[in-house]
């Protein structure tokens, strides 16, 4: 197909460079400089999509990031990307695109039948039509709506591209490179400040790219080129094109999404990161984000061929693509006359401008009249015809209050409407910065009012729509921003001279009447194109009590589509305020949130998300041995811990059974290096520990160890561990593997903020020491071989003491502590001796059949003894008594963290959930961890839950399943039978002591 609508002009395209592409399965030709949208316009293709709910045919409406209709699935395979705006996709050779919201094709969409059933899709349809019966929602309605409304399709394959992030500082950040932004960047750049100028478009120039303005007596684009050249020559200025500032956060933190390679085609530049997210911290910000033209809300204003006026102008001037053969301009202001004039000059037939105002006597309307264009004032478009393309319109005189038609209708054949309802400054970033807006009655739009950050707004974004003023504002703001960041004297360079054209004020008529009252009859007044929200929907929402703009938005879904209401928000709230009889400022706006336009997940994730860099991995020095000996691993926080060591043919159950028995019968070895370790020194160390732990520490002898609980101030257990006194003022604290960092933070917080007078120093030494736990009845014999010079007898080296000595030829600290209940020693050596020590233990232990065991066996063995794991058996709501460990509270101590909360009457309630053991009636049945517990088998609804299973295992040493649980009043209910529930399965269990094995503790001395 040839480009029937391509003219010989077009300042932004190179007609000699042809580009072939495919849209909805059909081949087309475009030229270099085209967007997908402009190439389609040049080929006369306006039908590009279907609406969200009713699948009405929709055309290209805009030429920028605010596009609601031309939503595209670009490419196929792993690089396919959904929901892109055709107006922002740069054309490249071989591009493949299709519309997202239609099936089977955009020309024949079976779901368009929704259009006939559109009464089902009124405002709030989610909450009404599909409410009953409830069971239908999950199974029928929701999947159906999702398929009907589903926009693009996500690729199933892994994203083959790379993405990166950059962090950067600057003095002046200028967002938007239109005339005001360029001026601001020039002024700031000349001061020597570090300046960043970014713009979402392919080229700098903003609105000047689309218009035919004159600056300093020559085409504005020449001024743009010289300004850009001047900026490029400044070393202190960074220019970012195709870079969308999508978030403005606290303290001038601005995120920018730069599309670096998309315009070369998918995969064409594998050596470059496809997208980059910039994180700027700016001393001063200048917002020059421009404005969006506002659609007019009139009857059936959504037919393909209906376009925003300035976008039509852009297609003609910049891309050399005429929006149609014969069009009318429909406006409430002077700016659209410029469009009529340019389009006539470009060769399009524009027989008429229809102006809602009674009088159009400004400079531009008069020029239009001189061009032979008929200007019909005090009139509006009251009907349109044509399904897949506009065919004709009907116009009529309307009353001055805009409420009704007053004259006869007149029919005009045309394929294009260029509409302009005025301009909405793009205040999104300003609002994100917590700046406050005000409503301007004359311009009928919201303008920046009070800045909350170090920021200035200039140009159209500030409501300054005339070019000369925008240039001057930009120069002034750039110079002042530089001065406020410490550069220059704040004197603005002279602004270039534009031709000043005075525009007369607009007249806001928010809903153009038709021959039926709005909401009755067949015609629809669309406000939000992508979400199919009509003026009638908003009026209905107001009648149904949605008086807040936030409620109206959620009820009707206005502004909640991928375009986030860039076109619809102001029209929507104006209609709402009229319906409520309130002034627009009283109704206010909804909140603008990042991102300004959608950002790909890949860009947000950045580099390395597909690899090992997403999260650090921590390994112990013995990791290589575990790997070589077939261990499976379990992540514990960032640590990779050996889980179990299956022998040939063993599954986890078999391996854990073997490992568990081996320790109880002989000797087992566990890599416990991940245990948190904190070295605590200072003359007040013992006093400090006395406040941190619930038990008494002052008199702990050097060479001894003690198990302790730490509570939070609310009296609940938050970590546990064994701490050993290495010297008078020197302690070695151990914490849970997962709690290590949190405990160190906790200690530091109290030392720095509550007790700064205490002389105590805490250092994390977790990775400095490797810990090998050797347990079982044969442990002593092995230790005696490993360290012949040390005395391991119960008398010389009793339980809960530690000794220093030479073990396997290296200096070691040996702690006699036990997490299994059996005789056990923890050997600590410097981490570089860890592997050596492990191998030596395996070598000398071979004759005792030493068995390495992992975390799963460790869990089973400790559960056999009823030892809690903080974070598994507890959840931050247990006191020591709840865990059956009253003995760990030093009654004599006047104070420790958590004590005051702990002594409240409430913690003595017997109906608190308490730690108990559970034995199943069927010894082979292992409970599900997390299973809920009830006292009775059969319960009323809702069932009174009395607790839950926290740990459950098969105990090979007892040949019985065991479990630990938190049960209300559990300590008083020993021996009672209760019931565990797991997804419909009910299991009868007996409450028992959590100490299942060796209840007298006879095994710990070997």
């Amino acid at each position, binding site marked *: 197909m040839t480009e029937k609508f391509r003219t010989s002009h077009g300042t932004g395209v190179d007609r000699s460079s042809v580009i072939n592409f495919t849209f909805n399965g059909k081949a087309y030709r475009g030229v270099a400089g085209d967007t997908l949208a402009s190439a389609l316009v040049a080929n006369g293709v306006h039908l590009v999509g279907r609406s969200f709910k009713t699948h009405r045919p929709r055309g290209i409406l805009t030429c920028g990031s605010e596009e609601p209709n031309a939503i595209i699935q670009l490419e196929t395979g792993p690089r396919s990307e959904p929901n892109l705006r055709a107006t922002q996709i740069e054309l490249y050779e071989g591009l493949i695109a299709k519309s997202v919201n239609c099936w089977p094709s955009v020309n024949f969409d079976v779901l368009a039948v929704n259009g006939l059933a559109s009464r089902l899709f009124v405002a709030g349809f989610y909450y009404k039509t599909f409410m009953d019966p409830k069971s239908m929602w999950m199974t029928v309605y929701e999947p159906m709506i999702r398929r009907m409304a589903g926009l693009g399709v996500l690729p199933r394959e892994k994203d083959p591209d790379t993405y990166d992030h950059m962090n950067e500082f600057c003095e002046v950040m200028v967002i938007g490179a239109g005339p005001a932004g360029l001026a601001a960047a020039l002024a700031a750049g000349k001061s020597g400040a570090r300046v960043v100028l970014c713009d979402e478009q392919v080229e700098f120039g903003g609105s000047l790219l689309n218009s035919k303005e004159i600056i300093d007596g020559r085409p504005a684009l020449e001024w743009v080129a010289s300004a850009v050249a001047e900026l490029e020559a400044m070393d202190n200025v960074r220019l970012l094109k195709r870079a969308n500032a999508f978030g403005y*956060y*606290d*303290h001038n*933190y601005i995120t920018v999404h730069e599309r670096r390679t998309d315009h070369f085609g998918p995969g064409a530049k594998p050596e470059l990161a496809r997208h980059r997210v910039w994180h700027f*911290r700016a001393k001063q910000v200048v917002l020059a984000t421009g404005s969006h033209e506002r659609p007019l809300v009139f009857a059936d204003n959504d037919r393909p061929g209906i376009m925003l006026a300035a976008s039509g102008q852009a297609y003609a001037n910049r891309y050399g693509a005429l929006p149609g053969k014969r069009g009318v301009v429909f406006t409430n202001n002077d700016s659209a006359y410029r469009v009529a004039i340019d389009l006539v000059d470009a060769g399009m037939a524009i027989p008429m401008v229809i102006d809602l105002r009674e009088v159009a006597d400004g400079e531009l309307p008069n020029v239009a009249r001189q061009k032979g264009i008929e200007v019909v004032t005090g009139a509006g478009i009251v009907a349109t015809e044509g399904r897949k393309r506009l065919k004709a319109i009907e116009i009529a005189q309307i009353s001055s209050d805009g409420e009704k038609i007053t004259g006869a209708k007149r029919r005009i054949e045309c394929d294009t409407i260029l509409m302009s309802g005025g301009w909405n400054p793009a205040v999104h970033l300003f609002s994100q910065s917590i700046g406050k807006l005000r409503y301007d009655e004359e311009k009928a739009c919201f303008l920046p009012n009070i800045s909350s950050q170090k920021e200035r707004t200039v140009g159209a974004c500030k409501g300054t729509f005339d070019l000369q003023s925008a240039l001057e504002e930009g120069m002034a703001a750039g110079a002042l921003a530089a001065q406020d960041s410490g550069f220059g004297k704040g004197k603005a360079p002279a602004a270039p001279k534009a031709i000043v054209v005075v525009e007369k004020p607009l007249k806001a008529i928010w809903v153009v009447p038709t021959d039926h009252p709005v909401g009755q009859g067949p015609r629809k007044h669309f406000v939000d194109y992508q979400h199919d929200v009509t003026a009638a929907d908003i009026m209905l929402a107001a009648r149904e009590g949605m008086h807040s703009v936030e409620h109206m938005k959620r009820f009707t879904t206005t502004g909640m589509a991928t375009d986030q209401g860039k076109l619809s928000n102001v029209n929507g709230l104006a209609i709402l305020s009229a319906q409520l009889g309130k002034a627009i400022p009283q109704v206010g706006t909804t909140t603008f949130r990042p991102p300004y336009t959608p950002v790909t997940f890949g860009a947000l994730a950045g580099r390395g998300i597909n690899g090992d860099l997403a999260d650090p991995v921590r390994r112990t020095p013995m990791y290589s041995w575990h790997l070589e000996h077939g261990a499976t691993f379990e992540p514990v926080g960032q640590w990779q811990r050996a889980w179990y060591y299956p022998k040939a043919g063993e599954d986890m159950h078999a391996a854990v059974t073997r490992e568990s028995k081996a320790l109880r019968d002989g000797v087992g070895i566990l890599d416990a290096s991940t245990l948190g370790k904190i070295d605590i020194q200072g003359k007040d160390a013992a006093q400090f520990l006395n406040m941190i732990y619930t038990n008494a520490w002052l008199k702990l002898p050097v060479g001894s160890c003690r198990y302790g609980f730490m509570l939070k101030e609310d009296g609940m257990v938050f970590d546990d561990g064994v701490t050993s006194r290495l010297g008078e003022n020197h302690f070695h604290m151990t914490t849970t593997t997962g709690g290590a960092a949190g405990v160190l933070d906790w200690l*530091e917080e109290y030392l*720095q*903020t509550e007790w700064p007078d205490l002389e105590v120093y805490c250092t994390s030494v977790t990775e400095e020491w490797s810990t090998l736990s050797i347990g079982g009845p044969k442990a002593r014999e092995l230790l005696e071989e490993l360290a012949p010079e040390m005395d391991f007898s119960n008398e010389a080296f009793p339980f809960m003491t530690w000794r220093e000595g030479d073990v396997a030829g290296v200096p070691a600290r040996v702690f006699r502590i036990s997490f299994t209940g059996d005789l056990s020693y923890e050997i600590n050596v410097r981490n570089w001796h860890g592997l050596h020590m492990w191998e030596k233990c395996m070598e000398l232990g071979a004759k005792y059949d030493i068995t390495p065991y992992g975390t799963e066996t460790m869990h089973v063995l400790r559960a056999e003894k009823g030892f809690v794991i903080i974070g598994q058996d507890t959840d931050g709501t247990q006191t020591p008594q709840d865990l059956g460990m009253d003995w760990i509270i030093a009654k004599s101590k006047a104070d420790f963290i958590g004590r*005051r909360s702990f002594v*409240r009457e409430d913690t003595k309630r017997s109906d608190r959930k308490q730690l108990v053991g559970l034995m199943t009636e069927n010894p082979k049945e292992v409970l599900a961890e997390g299973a809920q517990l009830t006292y009775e088998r059969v319960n009323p609804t809702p069932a009174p839950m009395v607790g839950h299973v926290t740990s459950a295992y098969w105990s090979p040493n007892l040949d019985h399943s065991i479990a630990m649980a938190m049960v209300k009043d559990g300590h008083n209910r020993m021996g009672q039978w209760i019931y565990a529930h797991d997804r419909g399965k009910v299991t009868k269990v007996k409450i028992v002591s959590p100490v299942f094995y060796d209840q007298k503790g006879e095994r710990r001395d070997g």
Partner: protein
Amino acid sequence: MLYIKCPWCGERDETEYHYGGEAHIARPENPDELTDAEWAEYVFMRTNTKGVHRERWVHSDGCRRWFNVARNTVTNEIVAVYKAGEKLELPAAEAVKAEAETKKAPAKKPAKKPATVKKAAVDKKEGA
């Protein structure tokens, strides 16, 4: 994301820090003398300031030191940063706002808290 000036390390992104809640709430010296309600006041109750709020931060990914920040909760503007133990004199306008806030808070619960407890603690540990 806030940009916070650590008194020891200088300006860094908020991601390097952790928030520590309202500042200048000292742990009572005599917990046993407090009623349950008074103790709960210390453990749980915090002011919900609109305006300048004094709060604790720790530079957890830096020097690991705790310090104080006076932050406007409406705009997130950081009015001042000061070390634990230091006193902060707010600029006149800010001080008026801050005072208005603190006046409001105790007025609601004058009898509940023995003035001596809070005062003694604050005097001793201003900045904590």
